């Protein structure tokens, strides 16, 4: 099965930048007979999505998992935390939590968003 994701940077110097990953380009890691897909996010260049301009982002900061037909966000014990947007106060991510398309989440000081799939 083919997987694809587009993530838009929503703040910082790369605000508006679109990062696209796809299994067709050998991005990420396939698991469970290709049903699950894992992407790594962080400041180090060998991440699938590299955020190099935010010193508050850890080298290996977080992961996005595609599993059971939805996206999950995992914080990898990052120094400054991963957060998801909430109405009153942003909530820190501990462990792995579900994340919606179009929901904003934050690594260090950098906000990101999973874009709806193109038709």
């Amino acid at each position, binding site marked *: 099965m083919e997987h694809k994701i587009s993530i838009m940077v*929503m*703040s*910082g*110097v*790369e*605000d*508006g930048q679109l990062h696209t990953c796809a299994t067709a380009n050998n991005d990420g890691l396939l698991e469970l007979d290709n049903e699950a897909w894992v992407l790594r996010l962080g400041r180090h260049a060998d991440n699938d999505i590299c955020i190099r301009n935010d*010193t*508050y982002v850890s080298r290996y900061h977080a992961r996005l998992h595609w599993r059971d037909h939805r996206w999950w966000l995992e914080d990898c014990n990052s120094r400054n935390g991963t957060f998801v947007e909430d109405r009153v106060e942003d909530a820190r991510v501990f462990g792995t939590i579900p994340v919606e398309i179009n929901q904003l989440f934050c690594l260090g*000081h950098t906000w990101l968003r999973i874009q709806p799939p193109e038709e």
Partner: protein
Amino acid sequence: MFNIALRDILINAKQESFRMYHYYLGVEHLFIGLLEIQGGLTRSLIEAQGLTADYVIDAIRRQTGKGSQQRLWAGIQHTPRANIVMSIGNDLALEDGRQEMNERDLLIAILEENDSIPIRVMRKLGVDLEMLARESRTFVPDYTNSHPYVQIDYSPDFPVSPALNENQLFILRRMFDEYSQIRVERRLTGGYTQALIALVTPKQGDGSEDAPVVVKIDSADLILDEAMRYDQYVKTSLPPLTARLEEKPTTAESTDLAGLKYTFVAGVNRTEQNLRLGARDLGIQRVGRWLQEELYPYFGRTWWQARKPYRFQVWQEYDWLLPPILTLEYAGEEPSSSIQHVLRDPIRRRKLTELEYGDLVAVENFSVQRVYPEKDMIQIAIGKGSEAAKRAYKINVKNINLAQNAYYRGETLERIMGRVWKNREELLQHAAGEIFPTFDTRADHIPGIPEVEKLPNPLLAYEDLLELHVNGSLSKIHGDLHLGNILVGPNESAFLIDFAQTRDGHALFDWATLEISLINDLIVPVAGQEWTNAAQIARCVYAINRGAALPNVPPELAESFAPLQAVRDIVNECLAKQDKWAEYFVALTMCSLRAVTWDTMSIGGRRAMLLIAGLALHELRARPTRSTPGARTPSYFEDSNDTDITS
């Protein structure tokens, strides 16, 4: 200046980027650049939505946060989103036959792109973006007729002095600009706050009067916070008939003030009266019954009665009431080798008392609560936990160059350094000195009343109390429940106003606050202002604390305690554990100690407060808390697990 050219906006935007250590140009900087144009289009439109430019700028800064002072690239590059916005703006200018985009083009471009940080922030603040988009295309400021003249009359009940100042009058006219005339009926404030709260009757052009509304005018930041808080916490929990905020706040570019209107759903003709002024009309005996039978049941169902078990340390709910733990003289943000003490969560209070004048202190991960541009000072606090805990351990940092450093409310400061200028003890002792005590305010005990030989000195003894764990309850609370904020409506129904402090907090906080207000507003005027009068009040409070009959005092004074007795009956229903009164005496100690520092309270009131705080502490000591075997020091409060009474 209206519709100015792009280059001037870019100067503002770049300055903002440098102030925030961002070193790139994003849509947020462009938008702040627009907001900073005095008399500009964006500023006017934001104001028309009941916000101020500064309030929106602070909210945007909170969203982005400051960058690091270390630069990761040279020059100042545009973000991809800023490039998109600029190209939309350029197209708009070209379509209109102009070479360069102007203020309006840039604003329209930001609104069309519709996905940037300022857009998301405005959505959170409740800005109507569709209306903004419409008006950004058509709005032209009308300098000739922007402030229609509204005639202001005063009712004979309205005191001549202090007169309303020019800025208050300006906001007031603006709030009622669809009317030709208004009458200010009476002042509803009792003076704990700087805010003006007044009852106002608007009059139509044909002379007919509309229902009176309560108007509150205060600094724009506080008013806008109150409006946000009302939307988030209050709106859904109000009983069907009460005062509501129906409109957006009114702001103005020419002043830092803003105004709110509380309208009454009942829409009646008679004028509402607050309990501070109305207690005598209602009859002092009736006030108590009214609190019990009207106010408490009517609001209680969604507020104090809807409570959940809540275990907290006293400082988490009550430290913020006290004066700042430290006042520091700013000494930069860079680490230094001569730091005497680092202050960070958790705070070691014992260490604080050892600090001396001039010691260098580093404070880490505190957040900015208030910025005082006219005093070159900021106030920071711990910024974490419950609503009240966020404001605990206030520290004032003075002599900061605020023109150079962009501090904004809600900003978390990784580190700020300062030299000790004053501590909390000095401020408390100063407040005690103001009420001219005839005794040593630095001694462990103060002379009080014949019934208690050794009254603990609250100015010293509160310290141990802050560490105590309380098994109490959490509910929605008003946060400032004094008599001035309680209105008696038609058919003697209960109305509350002023939701600036409404939050989830210790359920008994409101009742301790109300007890303080009852003593100051209804009892002290009867008793008198001298220390002997304060002692007389204290003897009565002591009897009530003990559930005993009042001592032999003049009948009029005895009568004035009836409402306080009613408050205690309400408290009895709100205690987390039946008959475990220690929970309330904790709240009463802290609320009365806070009142000692209020220079707006009468001198007799503050004298009584010092004794009442001592008495509440005495009750806590007389009802020993469960102690842990092998406790380090045999203090009354130390290391106790909770406030359970063992006897």
